[in-house]
């Protein structure tokens, strides 16, 4: 049996998205900037996609900027806020310890340029405390950027409350909603969001398209200069097929969300309960405030990559916060941030589900995992020490 349980990394493109894309390759292949009928057809399609995205975000079409993906959107949001801040002498930015590298590395770069960065703690449950945020906001705070849902441990932050607090304090609030979009409800107005990033390939849309939502009135800084596409704020011929695929996938995801989320969450809970039957396995991240599809556990005494490889040989695609899968020595900064020791963090396993998974697959994972864990533990000196220590 083959089970794809790595939907937080990327997803299969849905039939609906692909169908929407196909005409854009060979029929409506025009450049939306061209004034002739083939170009104008493309411009119409582009506008419709923009409206679809706006509608399902509670935004206006003019507030939607199309990018090549989530990383670009995160970078542009952060640079935009940094430039605005610098003009007012505000060079302090608040974020969290568990952001995606697209945010953290963009912040690192700003730090080198003289910005001061405060990374909030997320405690054992992986959730930011509003009181911490309130305490961290200063008169020179230019931006608060806090992700909606975490890509590794799936924890969901209190976005609406964070947004309200930022608004009260007059600070721009950006949220990296790459993992949330299509999986959790989003309404930028109701949730007090000034800027938001999302990426199509995380909700069964295609790779190569993302959105940078920026509330009107906030002057955007380009990171790609050139033509007048995207109101002059993002140059480059628009990736129409991917944008159209994104809109189709997002629409479907938003419309089916109540049902799909319930179904996925039921699978998730069954999986968590099953895995926690194993001895010395802990769930990472809050059990309730987590993405419907996210399971992240640490299997003590074994190392994540070898666990992944054995699952893979059994046909199960999963992920790990182990250093070994990233090629660096340190395990995931997210797992360390919630207080795991290096040793335990190395043994983490992420199974991320989507509506494309089914119960039979969950059963298969639950029957496949225990013997693998047992086998790896049986050859693990760490496990032996743990057992002797007891």
């Amino acid at each position, binding site marked *: 049996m083959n089970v794809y349980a790595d939907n937080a990394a990327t997803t299969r493109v849905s039939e609906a998205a692909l169908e929407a894309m196909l005409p854009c390759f060979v029929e409506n292949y025009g450049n939306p900037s061209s004034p002739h009928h083939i170009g104008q057809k493309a411009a119409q399609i582009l506008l419709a996609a923009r409206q679809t995205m706006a509608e399902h975000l509670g935004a206006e079409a003019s507030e939607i900027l199309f990018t090549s993906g989530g990383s670009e959107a995160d970078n542009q949001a952060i640079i935009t806020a940094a430039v605005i801040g610098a003009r007012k002498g505000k060079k302090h930015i608040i974020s969290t310890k568990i952001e995606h590298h697209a945010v953290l590395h963009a912040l690192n770069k700003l730090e080198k340029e003289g910005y001061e960065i405060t990374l909030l703690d997320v405690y054992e449950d992986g959730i930011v405390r509003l009181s911490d945020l309130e305490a961290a906001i200063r008169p020179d705070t230019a931006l608060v950027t806090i992700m909606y849902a975490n890509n590794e441990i799936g924890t969901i932050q209190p976005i609406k409350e964070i947004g309200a607090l930022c608004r009260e304090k007059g600070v721009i609030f950006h949220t990296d909603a790459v993992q949330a979009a299509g999986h959790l409800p989003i309404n930028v107005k109701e949730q007090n969001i000034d800027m938001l990033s999302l990426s199509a390939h995380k909700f069964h849309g295609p790779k190569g398209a993302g959105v940078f939502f920026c509330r009107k009135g906030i002057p955007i800084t380009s990171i790609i200069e050139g033509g007048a596409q995207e109101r002059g704020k993002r140059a480059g011929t628009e990736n129409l097929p991917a944008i159209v695929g994104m809109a189709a996938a997002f629409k479907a995801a938003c419309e089916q969300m109540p049902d799909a989320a319930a179904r996925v969450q039921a699978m998730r809970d069954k999986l968590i309960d099953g895995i926690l039957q194993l001895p010395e396995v802990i769930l990472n991240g809050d059990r309730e405030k987590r993405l419907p599809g996210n399971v992240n556990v640490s299997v003590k005494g074994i190392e994540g990559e070898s666990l992944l490889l054995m699952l893979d040989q059994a046909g199960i695609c999963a992920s790990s916060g182990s*250093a070994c899968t990233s090629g660096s*020595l340190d395990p995931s900064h997210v797992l360390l941030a919630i207080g795991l020791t290096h040793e335990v963090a190395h043994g983490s396993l992420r199974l991320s589900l989507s509506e494309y998974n089914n119960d039979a697959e969950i059963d298969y994972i639950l029957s496949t995992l225990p013997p693998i864990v047992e086998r790896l533990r049986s050859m693990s000196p*760490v496990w032996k020490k743990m057992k002797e220590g007891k």
Partner: protein
Amino acid sequence: MMYSEKVMDHFTNPRNVGEIEDASGIGEVGNAKCGDIMKIFLKIEDGIITDAKFNTFGCGAAIATSSMATELIKGKPIEEALKLSNKAVVEALDGLPPVKLHCSVLAEEGVKMALQDYYNKRGEEMPEEYRPRCDGDCSGCGV
């Protein structure tokens, strides 16, 4: 990161997994912090490594290099085991991804640690040039 077929074979069916009760020498290298720990057990009789076993906590490459390193020295005289290099382990595995080379170093060092233990137990001096260099702090190793 793609493993060779040999690596996958030694990962999937690792040779020499286990412990040796009355081992002549035991070596442990790496640490849990950096994600790899290898424990090598050697049985040495008349200067010949008659048995070698390992326990490893680590990635696919760590398990495969442990397996291959123990295979390479089993049945060999000590002198040959002393000369085991990480390069030989990598070659025997048809290569390793660059980010995994440190696993092969760990395997070499594990064998040397076990031999050091053997020399120590016998109250003998291990030849200077073959002494392990692993200090247990992977970040200092540079590979």
